[in-house]
C-alpha cells in the first residue's frame, strides 16, 4: 500500500459538457502497473474519492481518469487546470478478465461508467477478441469515447435516452436489441446500478456470462475499513471487486437494491 502521490495534471480533455478526463505522467512499473477495471483514489486536498482508470498509455507512461461533475468533489476537480496538483494512490481492486481470444464480447457503459472501456477493449483486442461496445448516455453531447473506440477497431453502438444519437431508449433495450442478431460469449457492464440491474437480469435470462463493475462508497480502498462490504457475502468492493462475475453477483443480494452511506445507513435505490 502506498501514500497518495501528488502529481501535476498533464492534460485535461473536455469529453462532454459534464465530463472531463485528467491525464498524468505515471511510471508504468511494479505495483504501479494498472489493469483494466482497476481504480485510483484521487485526493483534492479536501476529500478523496475513487475513479476508474480510463486512460493507460504504456508507451508514454501516462494514466488518466474521467470525471463527471455531480457533487462537491467532482465539481471541484472540474475547476482544476493543467499543471494543478492532485494526489493519486492506486491502482486498486481486481479489474476485468480480458482473456477472450477468438471470443465476441459485449461491453455496456452507461454515462461515466464508460470509464474502464477503452483500456478493457484494447486489452481484449490485444488478446485476440472481438469487442462490441454500447455507449449509453442521456443525450448525444454526453456520449463518451465513441471515436476513440472506433479507432481501436471496436463496433460502437450508441444509445441515448432522448434519441439524439443512435438508438433511442435505455441501455437495456439496446442490449436486448443486439442480442437478437448477435451472439456474445461474454459481457462487461459498468454504470449506475439502476442501469446495471435490468441488464444483469437480461443477460442472466440469455445465459450470457458477464462481469459487472460496481461502485460502493469507499474510505480506505485497501480492504480494511469494511465500508464497501456488500451483503450477503461481505466481499469488499475495493479489494475483492470492483468487478464481479455474474456468479458472484447472484450472491450479492444487495445489488440493485441498496448501498450504504458513509455512516453505514442503507440507501435504497
Amino acid at each position, binding site marked *: 500500500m502506498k501514500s*497518495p502521490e501528488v502529481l501535476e495534471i498533464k492534460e485535461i480533455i473536455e469529453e462532454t459538457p459534464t465530463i472531463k478526463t485528467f491525464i498524468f505522467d505515471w511510471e508504468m512499473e511494479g505495483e504501479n502497473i494498472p489493469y483494466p477495471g482497476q481504480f485510483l483514489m484521487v485526493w483534492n486536498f479536501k476529500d478523496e474519492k475513487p475513479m476508474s482508470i480510463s486512460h493507460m498509455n504504456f508507451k508514454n507512461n501516462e494514466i488518466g481518469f474521467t470525471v463527471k461533475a455531480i457533487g462537491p468533489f467532482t465539481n471541484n476537480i472540474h475547476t482544476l487546470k493543467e499543471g494543478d496538483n492532485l494526489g493519486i494512490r492506486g491502482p486498486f481492486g481486481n479489474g476485468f478478465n480480458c482473456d477472450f481470444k477468438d471470443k465476441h464480447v459485449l461491453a455496456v457503459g452507461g454515462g461515466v461508467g464508460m470509464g474502464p472501456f477503452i483500456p478493457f477493449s484494447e486489452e481484449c483486442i490485444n488478446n485476440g477478441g472481438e469487442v462490441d461496445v454500447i455507449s449509453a448516455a442521456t443525450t448525444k453531447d454526453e456520449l463518451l469515447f465513441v471515436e476513440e473506440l472506433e479507432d481501436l477497431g471496436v463496433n460502437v453502438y450508441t444509445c441515448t435516452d432522448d434519441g439524439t444519437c443512435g438508438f433511442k431508449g435505455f441501455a437495456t433495450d439496446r442490449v436486448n436489441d443486439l442480442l437478437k442478431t448477435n451472439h456474445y460469449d461474454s459481457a462487461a457492464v459498468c454504470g449506475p446500478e439502476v442501469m446495471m440491474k435490468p441488464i444483469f437480469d437480461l443477460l442472466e435470462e440469455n445465459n450470457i456470462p458477464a462481469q459487472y463493475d460496481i461502485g460502493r462508497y469507499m474510505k480506505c480502498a485497501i480492504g480494511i475499513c469494511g465500508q464497501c462490504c456488500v451483503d450477503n457475502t461481505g466481499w469488499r468492493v475495493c479489494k475483492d471487486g470492483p468487478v464481479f462475475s455474474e456468479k458472484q453477483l447472484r450472491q450479492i443480494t444487495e445489488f440493485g437494491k441498496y448501498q450504504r452511506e458513509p455512516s453505514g445507513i442503507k440507501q435504497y435505490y
Partner: protein
Amino acid sequence: MLETNVCGLNFKNPLLLAAGVMGSHASSLNWILNSGASGVVTKSFSIEPNPGYHNPTTVPVEGGIINAIGLSSPGVENFKEELEQIDSKGVRVASIYGASPEEFSYLASEIEDLIDVIELNVSCPHAMCGYGSSIGQDPTLTEKIVKATKESCKVPVWTKLTPNVTSISEIAIAAEKGGSDAITLINSLGPGMKIDIKTGNPILSNKFGGMSGPAIKPIALRCVWDVYDSVEIPVIGVGGISNYKDVVEFLYAGASLVQIGTSIMDYGPEIFKTINTDLNEFIENSDFNSINDMVGYAHKKI
C-alpha cells in the same frame, strides 16, 4: 487444542476480529467467522448516526497504517439489524462508544439481547472531543462508565484501553474497579500523522490518526504485560498481530485472547485459518497442553 474459556464463554480458538476492521456489516463479520475466527468485534457504534471524517481516512506508514475513520456509525437503531444477523456460532462482541455513562448504559441495554459481549471503546485516538481516548485517559470517568454499563446489562463487559496515557495500569485498575470483566488492549497508537512534502498538506483529513499494524506490537505487548501484572481480570491483546509467533508472544505476556485487525489488509480474512493451523502445530510440538497454560508464561521466567 486451541479452545479456551474466558469470562465464562467458550472460544474455539484465541483469535478474534478487532473492532473497526471489516466490522460494519453482519455479512463481513460472518465471513470472518467462516474464516476461522472464534469471535468478532463489531465496528464501534453510537446512539446517533455519524458519517465519520472525510477521506483520506487511512494512510500507510512504516510498519502499518494510520487511520482516522472517525467512528462512523449508522446509529444503534440501524445497527441492530446487523447485530441480529451475526452468526451465533462465534462469540459476538458489540463495540459501543458514547460520551457519558448514560450513553454507554443506554447502548448496552438496547443491544445486550442480540450479542454475547459488550466492548467499551473508551480509547479511539481520533474521536471527536469528549469521546474515545479522552475518556480512557481519565481513570475516574472510565470507572464510572464501566460501572454504569455493568449495571445496565447482564453480558460480560470488556473495556478497551488506549496506550496513549502516562500509565495504562492506572486506567486498567479503574476499569476493573468499575466491574469490567476483561481489559482489551491496545487501541491504535498515537495519534500519529503524515504530511505530503510536495504540498505541505497533512494527508489525513483529520490531520491525526491512530497507528496500527506490526509496528505497534512491541508497545501493545508491554501494555499487556503491565496490565496482566496489575489486574485480576483477563487481558485481551491486540496490536500488530500478523502470525502465530505474535500470538504466542501475546499469550506469554498475559493475554487470554487476541484480536487481529490491520493484518487483514495484507493477508485477507484467511489469516485466521493460517494462524490457527500454525498455532496448533506450535502447541503440539511444545510442552503446553492448552492455550490457558501459555497465558502469562513469560512472567514465570523472570
